[in-house]
């Protein structure tokens, strides 16, 4: 069970949330000009890193707001969470040996 901190409600159990996939995937700026390959890339292709991963979560049984979580995919550790309009925070130890 993950303990995720909602930026609005504070720490709550994972059961109160739903997962929303990778964060910071911008909608194409000129959607009309995209080839099928580029569309496929936008719709289906996602990063799969081992380590810190920025992903979207929604606090479905709480405030019903979407926000972003930085989670280590190797250890399941929730490193930080931040509002949807905030940039991905820099982690001092991200990428290093822990």
């Amino acid at each position: 069970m993950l303990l995720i901190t909602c930026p609005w409600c504070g720490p709550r159990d994972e059961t109160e949330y739903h997962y929303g996939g990778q964060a910071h995937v911008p909608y194409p700026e000129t959607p009309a000009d995209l080839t099928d390959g580029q569309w496929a890339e936008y719709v289906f292709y996602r990063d799969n890193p081992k380590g810190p991963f920025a992903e979207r979560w929604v606090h479905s049984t709480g405030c019903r707001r979407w926000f972003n979580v930085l989670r280590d995919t190797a250890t399941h550790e929730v490193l930080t969470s931040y509002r949807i309009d905030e940039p991905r925070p820099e982690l001092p130890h991200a990428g290093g040996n822990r």
Partner: protein
Amino acid sequence: MAEPTIDARVSPLAHLQERMRAAAVTGARGVTLTERPFLTMVNLRVDPASEAADRIEKTLGAPLPGQCGHTAAAGPHTVAWLGPDEWLVLSRAEPAAVTAELREALGGDPGSVVDVSANRTTLELGGPAARQVLEKGCPLDLHPRVFAPGRAVSTTVGPVAVLLWQVDDVPTYRLFPRSSFADYLARWLIDAMGEYRGPDLP
């Protein structure tokens, strides 16, 4: 002039009234469960920094709580925080009157005032053992050092999403499940209350 109206409403838990009464436990580990049907609930969405929010606060006579878990009470109304720009106004006044009043205060500004009284029903769980009953299925920390009278939080009890509001020190809680989940939640609570009927085991 106006036709006499007949109140033909049936509350979502009318059929469980007898069972809830029979499940009541008295004594030092007492706990009771009742439905308080047809409470007025109005969903309010507005930018808390806007002038419309100020007008609404004046109309309600209470500030809109700005933080998760907080409530504000004034006259017949209690305002519970649902989200950073969303509140639930619980009231003993008529739903049409409250809605009209708030809608007038909102004016043409961005936001919404919607009468959602039929969306949820109200279960009142009270007694010395009420917290223990809730702790069987609620992931929140309900200990008095964290959760106190006047706090209201959206969470789950068992698998059911509810707004959980602690009313007093007894403790008495009010649970607001959606109407279609109320039957399940009431039966879940009746089942959870059962063990307090017997002696406290070491």
